[in-house]
């Protein structure tokens, strides 16, 4: 008999065993599904947080307004100074006229605000984007050191807050998901261990009539892999449905930060990744149960 046929026979046998005592299997599957559903939610939150962070990082993070009498040469000097630090991604000069054009565009629906506003009322400025959010403080320090700079606006606190949030989310996610994975791992050890105990007579007989250790162990390893595969698939599907059902409200909440539509490949990668981890978890749990409980002479 070919190896594939033998494996298929073992697989069918495992499914038969699962169907004979479904409650343990359901418990293991639910735990696996919950674990990987929570993992998926954290993955989505972390990736979403990163998208928000990237969006904010791409916006001008430091805006320095100049006094009216600042000469162009001084402005150029400041621009060069900022560029020379190497932390700025983009430094853009906004003249008084450009500032007026922006003001007009933003307030085009408010004619009252447009009346009697000329370019002289608005200061010239430079918009600076940094490569990494933590460099905002450095750039702010540089521009503030020039007396020609009248005012500096920076969303530094928001970025700091966001970095803090995403870091906390990552850390919390890792701790929470690790705890759930440990619980799943222990439940699989317990469920497979119980099955080994229930089938002890059969295992002993098989061993005495010439079954190899791998022949005896295979159904239990397949069982662990099945828990992983189904658990991860259910979790990915639930995440997909959850995101799809709430797409509108999430997008409304995020405003200009474009998240949807999410590339379907994202869910494929999520499913493949989670299946790999879950199958590993299931097989490792079953292996440990076999090592711990399978004592055959």
């Amino acid at each position, binding site marked *: *008999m070919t190896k594939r*046929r*033998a494996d298929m*026979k073992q697989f069918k046998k495992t499914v038969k065993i699962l169907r004979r005592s479904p409650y343990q299997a359901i418990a293991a599957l639910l735990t696996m599904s919950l674990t990987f559903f929570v993992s998926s939610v954290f993955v989505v939150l972390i990736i979403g947080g990163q998208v928000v962070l990237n969006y904010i990082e791409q916006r001008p993070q430091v805006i320095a307004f100049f006094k009216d009498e600042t000469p162009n040469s001084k402005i150029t000097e400041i621009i060069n100074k900022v560029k020379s630090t190497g932390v700025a991604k983009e430094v853009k000069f906004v003249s008084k006229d450009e500032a007026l054009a922006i003001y007009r565009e933003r307030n085009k629906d408010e004619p009252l605000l447009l009346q009697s506003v000329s370019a002289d009322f608005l200061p010239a400025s430079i918009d600076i984007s940094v490569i990494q959010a933590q460099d905002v403080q450095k750039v702010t320090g540089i521009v503030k050191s020039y007396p020609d700079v009248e005012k500096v606006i920076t969303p530094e606190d928001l970025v700091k807050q966001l970095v803090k949030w995403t870091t906390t989310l990552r850390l919390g996610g890792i701790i929470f998901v690790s705890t759930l994975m440990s619980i799943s791992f222990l439940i699989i050890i317990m469920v497979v261990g119980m099955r080994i105990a229930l089938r002890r*007579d*059969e295992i*002993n*007989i*098989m*061993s*005495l*009539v*010439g*079954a*190899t*250790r791998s*022949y005896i162990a295979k159904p239990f390893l397949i069982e662990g892999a099945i828990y992983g595969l189904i658990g991860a698939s259910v979790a990915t599907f639930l995440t997909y449905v959850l995101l799809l059902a709430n797409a509108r409200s999430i997008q409304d909440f995020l405003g200009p930060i474009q998240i949807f539509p999410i590339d379907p490949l994202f869910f494929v990668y999520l499913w493949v990744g989670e299946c790999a981890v879950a199958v590993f978890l299931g097989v490792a749990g079953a292996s440990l149960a076999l090592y711990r409980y399978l004592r055959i*002479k």
Partner: protein
Amino acid sequence: MIKLDKVTKKYPSGQIALDDISLEIAEGEFMFLVGPSGVGKTTFLRLFTREVHPSSGRIFIGEQDILALPAKKVPYLRRRIGTVFQDFKLLLNRTIFENVAVPLEVTGKSDKEIEREVSEILEKVGLLEKANSFPIQLSGGEVQRTAIARAIVSRPQVLLADEPTADLDPFTAEGVVDLLEKINKELKTTVIMATHNVQIVNKYKKRVVSMKEGKINSDEKEGRYEAVQKDS
């Protein structure tokens, strides 16, 4: 040829189950291993399947020193040896057919081969019509025949039978030994049967090896149980 060379089995408790046993059993031979309960008959049989590892000595099946086999090769050794266990070791939730099929399943045979070989053996032991029954639905003799069928289904070189007639009435017990004798003759299988059934041993006039306190007390061709006991 089976050969035991100065085999001793001492348990960690200090109890000596087998003491310096040397014995040769020819291929295709039928041998009774007799002696009172607790004398070491079961330990003796379990040596061949490596369920028990002796403290010293060597055991050969053919040219192979079975004690030198690495653990991963033991399943392949067991496929060459059929065992009828004292407590039958049948799976109560499987049919007779499924019980007999176990040794073939573990060797990876196809369903078709299993169907053919199990049916053939069940016919040989007279249980074909009971193939779909469960062990609990069978009589003592039928259960014993099922255990024998499972032991011989993979055509082993050696058949070990540990008290196969225990708890059977004399008529059924004879039927079981007749079956073992038939297997021995037709399949040329070496049969080692542990028993303390005096009537059976005396009726069949086979080689009788008697054990006492872990040692071989006597070894006689066409021996008798009473004679053996008197000698001891």
